């Protein structure tokens, strides 16, 4: 009997179809991978199964019975558990307290009794945790085990794991796989969401590939290989040249990163020994599934995250320790990954356009309101921003906000432009608009570093592409010399190669 059957699942977010009539089947006792790029629809599908989202069409059958899952509570009652990418653990609590939170019968909380109970569960399921340890002091791998135990403690027979190895070091990955093997023998069925081919091929029995919200196919591990999976993930087509053939990278690179390492917000290594160069008049695209260090790269190059190792060189200046103001003054234009942390929403369009270079709009310490307004009017017209200078940014659409940021950056004619996820969340029109401007900056001679999780975008805009995987650059190519398949493989961690 099938543990879980999802039939014809369709989910829309506005005009975006995240899941398009997807059929998914999970057999009992199997480890089934859900493979795909960002935006393929994997997480959406599983959130529907776990009751965090409601499907617009389709139904779900668990162990032969049709069910209606409207909240995580329902899912848990149907013995479905989920370990998401972002742990929901209370840091100062012990492991035990986290496991029993909301699931402890009665009124009182007996530490010894609950610890014993958790220890028993830990042994029974072979998930190694220390019941009295404080979560704050645990490694990421240990935290994950606590999350797994939480699900098992609530009697899960189906375990959904969303990108579980994204935050683990190789040794912890091995431990995780051992646990999953043991659990599978107990009869647990696992859905393993991932974009990493080698791991999927190691641990899983069957693999379902999603792309752009549709199911491409389900294959048995024995019947397939990494290349075929990569092809299914990113598509077969090679691409034509859609912008003019440009000259090679000439003399001194505009931006040079040498062995840059940096930590993420949790203090874990997010960038490992990254070296790259961006030349004048070129777009270097950073491709990769999100979560492989792109955010941190963007933040380092915006001046808000200091690298722990390595050097950043702009032309002939060492800008490694520069702060945001120095970055902008040195001629670097930065488009932040999150529009909302690059604009003060309660201030007006004109004010936001002027803030980065306030010195130019200051006369004797006072704001030169005329100049500010003039610049705003000029930029609004030039960049077709649908807003008045006095409008508060809060009232602008995503596309218009991005236009404000672009206007702010491009009006300074930067030598180097760092564009982090510049079209994320934008509609078709706004996306075209942003891409057009990136190409124009390139034509003007600026060096552009484009970080994007949209592989299409990277391919169509970049002269050269560097792929990031687990904080490293795993390959750099001239766009015309590579293929989707090769990119897909590298993005999924399959091989290491470089020719540019």
């Amino acid at each position, binding site marked *: 009997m099938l543990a879980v059957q999802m039939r014809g699942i369709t989910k829309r977010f506005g005009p975006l179809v995240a899941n398009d009539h997807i059929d998914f089947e999970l057999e009992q006792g199997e480890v089934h991978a859900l493979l795909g790029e960002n935006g393929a629809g994997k997480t959406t599908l599983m959130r529907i199964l776990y009751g965090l989202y409601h499907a617009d069409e389709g139904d779900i059958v668990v162990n032969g019975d049709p069910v209606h899952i409207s909240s995580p*509570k329902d899912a848990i009652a149907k013995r479905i558990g989920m370990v998401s990418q972002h742990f929901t653990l*209370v840091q100062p609590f012990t492991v035990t307290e986290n496991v029993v939170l*909301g*699931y402890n019968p009665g009124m009182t909380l007996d530490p010894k009794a609950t610890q014993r109970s958790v220890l028993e569960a830990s042994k029974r399921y072979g998930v190694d945790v220390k019941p009295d340890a404080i979560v704050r002091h645990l490694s990421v791998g240990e935290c994950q085990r606590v999350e797994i135990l939480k699900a098992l403690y609530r009697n899960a027979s189906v375990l959904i794991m969303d990108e579980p190895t994204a935050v683990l070091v190789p040794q912890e990955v091995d431990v995780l796989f051992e646990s999953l093997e043991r659990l599978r023998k107990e009869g647990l069925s696992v859905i393993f969401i991932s974009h990493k081919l080698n791991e999927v091929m190691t641990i899983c029995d069957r693999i379902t590939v999603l792309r752009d919200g549709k199911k491409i196919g389900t294959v048995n591990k024995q019947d397939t290989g990494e290349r075929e999976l990569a092809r299914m993930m990113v598509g077969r087509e090679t691409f034509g040249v859609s912008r003019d053939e440009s000259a090679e990278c000439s003399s001194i690179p505009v931006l040079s990163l040498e062995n840059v390492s940096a930590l993420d917000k949790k203090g874990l290594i997010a960038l490992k020994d990254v070296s790259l160069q961006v030349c004048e008049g070129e777009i270097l695209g950073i491709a990769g599934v999100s979560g492989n260090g792109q955010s941190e790269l963007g933040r380092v190059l915006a001046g808000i995250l200091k690298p722990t190792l390595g050097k950043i060189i702009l032309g002939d200046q060492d800008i490694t320790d520069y702060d945001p103001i120095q970055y902008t003054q040195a001629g670097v234009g930065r488009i932040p990954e999150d529009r909302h942390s690059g604009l003060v929403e309660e201030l007006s369009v004109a004010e936001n356009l002027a803030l980065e270079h306030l010195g130019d709009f200051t006369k004797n310490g006072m704001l030169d309101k005329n100049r500010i307004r003039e610049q705003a009017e000029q930029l609004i017209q030039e960049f077709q921003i649908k807003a008045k200078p006095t409008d508060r940014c809060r009232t602008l659409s995503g596309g218009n906000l991005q236009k404000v940021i672009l206007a702010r950056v491009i009006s300074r004619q930067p030598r180097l432009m760092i564009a982090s996820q510049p079209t994320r969340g934008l509609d078709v029109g706004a996306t075209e608009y942003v891409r057009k401007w990136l190409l124009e900056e390139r034509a003007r001679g600026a060096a552009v570093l484009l970080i994007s999780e949209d592989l299409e975008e990277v391919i169509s805009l970049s002269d050269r592409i560097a792929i990031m995987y687990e904080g490293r650059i795993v390959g750099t190519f001239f766009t015309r010399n590579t293929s989707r398949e090769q990119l897909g493989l590298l993005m999924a961690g399959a091989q290491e190669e470089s020719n540019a």
Partner: protein
Amino acid sequence: MEIFWIGLIAATLRVATPLVYGTLGELFCERAGVLNLGIEGTMFFGAFTGFAVAKITGNPWLGLLAAVLGGMLAGLLMAFFSVRLGVNQHVSGLGITLLLQAVSLFFFRLIFGEPTIPPSTEPFQRVSLFGNLPVLGPIFEQYLLTYVAILLIPIAAWVIYRTNFGLNIRAVGENPEAADAAGINVYRTRYLALMIGGGLMSVGGAFLSIAQLGAFTFGIIAGRGWVCIALIIFANWIPSRVLLGALLFGGIFALQLRLQTTIVVDLPYEFFLALPYVATIVALAIAGRNATGPAAMLKPYKRE
């Protein structure tokens, strides 16, 4: 000389009592993630309500009950603004303090007018724990509320660390998203914590008016609420340390009272009064970034 020390200890326990109630009350609020600056007003309100009902009915126990109910109402009001509406907790707390102080004064004037002699009521009597002990006697002759305050420390610790409700409070104060994901009703938990807190704070105020003083004066609380805010940080949000801190503050206050009358000291008594406050600022500076308390404090929770 022994009389000095015995008297000091006895006085310390008495002075610490309202601080214990107030701080424990604030503890429940802050552990659940709400900084309740309404404490000064709630204690004032408790002092007034307790006194007024005690005087009108002639029964101090009814006064105490009224104070508890009044405090719970104050907590409910704070919950409405800071939890339900999610407005800035600093300002709403201050607003509640201003409002409750004003309401108390208003009704005091309305009920008792402006008499030349402040109205008084029969206060609680002290209870002797072990009969008339020869030397240590005065230490064990405290108001019932003082003994209760001391007992409340382990009870509060038990509730916070040994019940599911306490676990929920702590979860909601540290990581409301995780608590929500675990099926806990964040709003309801915070509402309850604020009501319990308000009730406790109120008793602290009522102690001063119906036990210690037997009267209600406008200066009855005199910033003790703010002391409690400081005490919580001092106590690192742990119930047992609350007692320690309250005794310390109480002791210093009792000490300076005695120094005034018994021994001539060069330092002005205000120096001693100010000492605990200065000490708290120093403690805050030393603790630095670690003295932040429950991680979700001050952040209203809105489910995405």
